[in-house]
């Protein structure tokens, strides 16, 4: 007869001294956990509710400018600093952590329209409606910067004049060239007072310009006659041109997939294109009610932030049609520029009410040092919420956002209009001979044609 019974010795299962860790034993058998799906669902519900409780995205406002903010620039080498320029010619360097001005760059007479920093972080280029391009040397951040009372101001290292007002500027990622947009597209070198190269295209001005992060010689521009053009500066004319129905206010290239770019359009949508294939947009991002003024990608390449004329800032996933988050405040007026911080944690918006606002990219994120157990709990909550996010109760909580009344009403109105239009189109199609009425997909609807 062979017998064995379970006999546990207390020493094996308890700790010896109080300084030891407690012993933990695992048995993943599902039969020990009845009703595990219901428990998981309950945890998902609690996680969704907690996320809403901890959602406090607004970190602070940076006050100092005396006129509406027209543009911002990130310093690729220095995480804590951001440059901003306003409509009265005031350029400032802010320290995001203390939300104070570190340095001012006075000099421009009119509105500053474009700001950009070279990749090594040494040169700041600004251009404005006073037809000037100014180059400044960026002050090195040092430990003495903690002296907040002194706001330094510097002299430009170079001032170049041109014939017309300038509307945008962008610096090449690798190299010494920068491009300005105005009556025409000009390529400049740091040391030359005249543009090295010029591209003219018709009678309309070029509104915005952006260099490709992957290919140093390719840039995308948008012009006032509703074109988006892709230039290779080694060639003499545009490589590709897309004609849309409304003008594009800003373009951003995806840093992780440099062949794709997203264009922020005047009709409230953002269109993601594959730079190689322009007949149809890869994705249409619809949620803004009014013109989208600026767009910036996150360094992860997975989402982008947009600022719009309808006083809101939205964060979209790179491949999703609707925004995951909306930020708005009563005090924030028309948003003219947005930037996603280089550590993918913050979003900075510059608006008409002379303030720069700092928001968290993930509204319920806990900032600061997080212990590993806390981090695991956050990850578990995310995972269990994503598993059940299609169920109605959880979907309702996760999706809920408070919209300001004008945006809410405008959305309801546009929904009613779109529904009516769709119904009528369906009926027209149903009552015509099959094949005569063709529905255009959203991805091609706003593109008129592609010009080589």
């Amino acid at each position, binding site marked *: *007869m*062979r*017998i*064995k*019974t*379970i*006999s*546990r*010795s*207390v020493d*094996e*299962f*308890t700790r010896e001294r109080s300084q030891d860790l*407690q*012993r*933990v*034993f*695992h*048995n*993943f*058998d*599902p*039969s*020990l*956990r*009845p*009703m595990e*799906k*219901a*428990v*998981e*669902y*309950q*945890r998902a519900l*609690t996680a969704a509710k907690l996320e809403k409780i901890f959602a406090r995205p607004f970190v602070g406002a940076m006050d100092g400018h005396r006129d509406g903010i027209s543009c911002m620039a990130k310093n690729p080498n220095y995480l804590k600093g951001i440059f901003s320029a306003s409509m009265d010619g005031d350029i400032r360097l802010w320290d995001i952590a203390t939300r104070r001005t570190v340095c001012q760059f006075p000099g421009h007479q009119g509105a500053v329209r474009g700001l950009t920093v070279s990749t090594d972080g040494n040169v700041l280029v600004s251009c404005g409606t006073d037809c000037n391009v100014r180059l400044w040397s960026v002050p090195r951040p040092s430990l003495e910067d903690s002296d907040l009372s002194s706001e330094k101001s510097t002299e430009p290292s170079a001032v170049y004049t041109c014939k017309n007002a300038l509307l945008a500027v962008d610096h090449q990622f690798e190299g010494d060239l920068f491009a300005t947009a105005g009556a025409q597209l000009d390529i400049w070198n740091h040391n030359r007072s005249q543009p090295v190269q010029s591209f003219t295209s018709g009678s309309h001005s070029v509104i915005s310009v952006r260099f490709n992060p992957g290919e140093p010689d390719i840039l995308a521009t948008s012009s006032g006659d509703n074109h988006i053009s892709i230039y290779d500066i080694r060639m003499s004319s545009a490589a590709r041109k897309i004609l849309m129905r409304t003008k594009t206010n800003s373009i951003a290239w995806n840093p992780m997939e440099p062949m794709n770019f997203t264009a922020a359009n005047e009709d409230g949508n953002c269109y993601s294109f594959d730079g190689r294939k322009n007949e149809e947009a890869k994705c249409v991002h619809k949620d803004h009610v009014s013109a989208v003024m600026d767009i910036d990608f996150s360094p992860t390449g997975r989402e982008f932030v947009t600022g719009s004329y309808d006083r809101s800032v939205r964060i979209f996933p790179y*491949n999703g049609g609707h925004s995951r988050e909306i930020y708005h405040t009563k005090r924030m007026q028309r948003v003219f520029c947005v930037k996603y911080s280089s550590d993918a944690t913050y979003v900075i918006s510059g608006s008409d009410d002379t303030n720069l606002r700092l928001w968290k990219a993930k509204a319920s994120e806990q900032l600061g040092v997080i212990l590993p157990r806390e981090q695991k709990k956050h990850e578990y909550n995310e995972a269990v919420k994503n*598993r*059940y996010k299609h*169920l109605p109760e959880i979907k309702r909580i996760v999706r809920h956002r408070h919209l300001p009344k004008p945006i809410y009403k405008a959305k309801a109105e546009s929904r009613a209009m779109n529904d009516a239009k769709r119904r009528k189109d369906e009926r027209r199609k149903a009552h015509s001979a099959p094949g005569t009425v063709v529905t255009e997909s959203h991805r091609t609807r706003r593109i008129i044609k592609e010009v080589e």
Partner: protein
Amino acid sequence: MEVALEDNNLMENVLPPDEQEIDVDLEAKEKKYLRGEVANLESLKDKKLKTQLASREKLYGKSAKAAAKIEKWLLPASAGYLETDGLEKTWRIKQTDIAEEVDRSSTRNQYDIVLPDFGPYKLDFTASGRHMLAGGRKGHLALVDMMNMNLIKEIQVRETVRDVAFLHNDQFFAAAQKKYSYIYARDGTELHCLKERGPVARLRFLKNHFLLASVNKIGQLHYQDVTYGDMVASIRTGKGRTDVMEVNPYNGVVALGHSGGTVTMWKPTSQAPLVQMQCHPGPVSSVAFHPNGHLMATSGKERKVKIWDLRKFEEVQTIHGFHAKTLSFSQKGLLAAGTGSFVQVLGDSSGDYSRYMSHRMEKGYQVEKVMFRPYEDVLGIGHSMGWSSILIPGSGEPNFDSWVANPFETSKQRREKEVHLLLDKLPPETIMLDPSKIGAMRPSRRKEKPTRGEIEAEKEVAIEAAKGVELKKKTKGRNKPSKRTKKKKEMVENAKKTFPEQEHSNIAGKKRRIGEDAAAELPSSLKRFARKN
């Protein structure tokens, strides 16, 4: 296997022959951790969702494999067993024989506590098996720590105690006394008097939902949420008095056994039972549920114990011979039945339940309740002279999970666990027969429109049926051949029309007839006011 292979996939396929057998064993374990079938993603049209779900399914597969490997190699303890060789039978082995073979710490679990004055004892264990609550009929309540055999608290309530139950941990317990039920704290303080329920016959606690369920002498079922005291449901079963009530740990459903031989299953959100099964010709004596939720054992006064499959609600097995007053399943699936002073344990190692072990106590000890202790190879028996404990090798789960139930809990761990249990408390609406339905896809209800061919085929069948029907031959001069043929033609015409047209013609026919009669009765000057429908 020293072949230099560059491809990793090839490497995995080539296994030494002795390892290949273990792979089969691992696959069987893996199935358990997969928790069901792989989802069918072919019918999805949304490509993004399809890729996301496909990558998730891969992850599930990987985690199931890892869990199977952990179960095979990393679990600290292995299950108990009792094997005999040759002609020796396992059910002839006595507890004294077992005591000689096992170690000291196990023999501490074999004892008889003799308390003849306080009546038959009912037992309850906490989920970790560490604490035991014994309630004697004449009012004796005792809370014992089984690890040290320490009597934590005993009180004498001086009233009949019909049932006892622990709440979520050993800090609180409930006793069903003569007129009302009471909730006590660990040190014996009476915390609550549950007056609403009346005199309760059975008390059970649903752990995941924090619901205290009870059935009283009138046959009413009460569910009360013990976290804030709300009576969630009080259901009139309508089947009369019963004192057989058990909770199915798999889905939280309460089963009542009635004197007509039916077993009904209830959930708090409905006034009608979920299931009614006719189990025995006479009254049901006791009910027990297997921890996997698929098997139920019932016993009736006709000296039979029946095992039921709850997925199909069919009888799987009948065991003849004894009238089991109390039944209990262990974590490993052994079934203990107590009758008179005899306890029999049945095991399903050979597929069906057959005799595994038995224990005969002295003649005066009438067994009142048997209950297996969780995570130990121990069976607790409450009887008329006190309570006993015997060893049943192979009945308990050897490896506990510290996050589920920890017999070696410190007070700090107990407090944390209580908070987590409260955070994970399930609402009573989640109690359903199949708990895996939560979050599952609902099958699409839209019936497909029948195709033209199908409609034609149906029509032809209807026409044939109409032609083949035999009309009843009427008497008293009403059986005119012309009328018969007319009626048959009408039936065939009806069958040829589609269903909506048939309805329309029937209704129109009726209305016309009524209108015509009314018009015929009116004098001619008023005929123009007759309703023309």
